[in-house]
């Protein structure tokens, strides 16, 4: 009986872990999509000159990037082996480096908000730094499967 109870508890626990990690993957994708939309959609369009510079729009997008970056918790959103759609197994081979790169993004996003850019040149400088964070991490840790 005790054994059965233990087995049931184990099963319930692993089901809970499984569901949690599936939700975490969804959260992870939502965070990444949010980062991309604000950075490459809103800010990228302005940097390329396809939309006019508007300090309010720019700073709202930066705040959005900062909020999404802060949400990322590597242990929660990138549990070992959770390759999902496009995460590379190299993440868990070089976990300290991956975590450091995420921390760098958080620092860059917070700095961009603090910089409070008021013209296109100020934005370009912050944008370049953020872009390096995105590209530098995607270079090593994202793969295309589709």
């Amino acid at each position, binding site marked *: 009986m005790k054994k059965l109870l233990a087995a049931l508890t184990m099963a319930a626990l692993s089901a809970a872990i499984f569901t949690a990690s599936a939700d975490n993957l969804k959260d992870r994708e939502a965070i990444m999509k949010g980062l991309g939309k604000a950075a*490459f959609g809103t800010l*990228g369009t302005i*940097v*390329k000159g396809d939309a006019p510079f508007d300090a309010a729009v720019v700073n709202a997008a930066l705040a959005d990037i900062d909020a999404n970056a802060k949400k990322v918790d590597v242990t929660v959103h990138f549990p070992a082996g959770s390759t999902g759609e496009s995460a590379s197994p190299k993440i868990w081979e070089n976990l300290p480096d991956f975590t450091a790169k995420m921390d760098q993004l958080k620092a860059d996003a917070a700095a961009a908000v603090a910089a409070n850019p008021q013209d296109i040149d100020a934005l370009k400088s912050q944008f370049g730094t953020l872009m390096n964070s995105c*590209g530098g991490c*995607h*270079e090593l840790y994202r793969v*295309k499967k589709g």
Partner: protein
Amino acid sequence: MIKKLAIAAFILGAVGGLLFWVLTEPQRLDPAEVAKAGDGDVARGELVFWQGGCAACHAAPGSKDDERLQLAGGLVLKSPFGNFHAPNISMDLEDGIGAWGFIDFANAMQRGVSPEGEHYYPAFPYSSYARMNLSDISDLWAYFKTLPEVKGKAPGHELPFPFNIRRSLGGWKFLFFKQGPALEIANASDAVKRGQYLVEGPGHCGECHTGRNLLGGPKMGQWLAGGPNPEGEGNIPNITMGEGGIEKWSEKEITSALSDGITPDFDSLGGSMVQVVRNWAHVPEGDRAAVAAYLKAIPALPNGYPAPAAAAK
């Protein structure tokens, strides 16, 4: 009877051996043609350097800014045939290629042959560089000569038998090393022609974006349709206008993605394409637009790799 068989076998063996030897003999450029290229132009050579992406493999991984001009090698290129280590191609006299003449450089770039007369592995994309104009090679060499000397030899390739026998690459070249354009494009505009030169030549896009057969030869019928990533996980994207490719990208979006890495669906390019963008950010917009024009003009193909498992979406 046995004697006759033995003689026949001997003759067959000798003919076969001779044929192998002749077919696998390294072929060099005509020195008279190479001499006609004349002295190169350093400034133009720098542009060729960025189009060709030399730094992506020959600068140490993770190099930034001026470090990317330190061409001591270091990148490990994994493949189904083994691991290739990009060599030192800095101007160092002993560890690099500082002692080379232009003819040596041209033969390496366009025939995949070393000054000692050995074949290079096609991990070095001479199959693409062979399509370049000699004048561009000459400009590139002029620029190379301005780059720093860096000490240090890269480790040798790690290849199992029989891939470790360089002479056998003569067989690979006989089968797959075709000079001339990858595609015939009817009524190509000047922009498309320029794009074709850049993509098929210095840009060497087809080296990754065209899948390979079991012998490592490009599947020319699937030109730029992508394929499984030879380095392991994932796929190399289809960059034709076929389904699964970049059919939704406008020419303007392709042109800008090559310099800022931003995709039309608000993502950033990843993998080794990050290096390509770092290089192509130095290339003038007109050339990037020409690449876009070419990609719009070539046959639209479905993905050169299998659909992802149903569970992925």
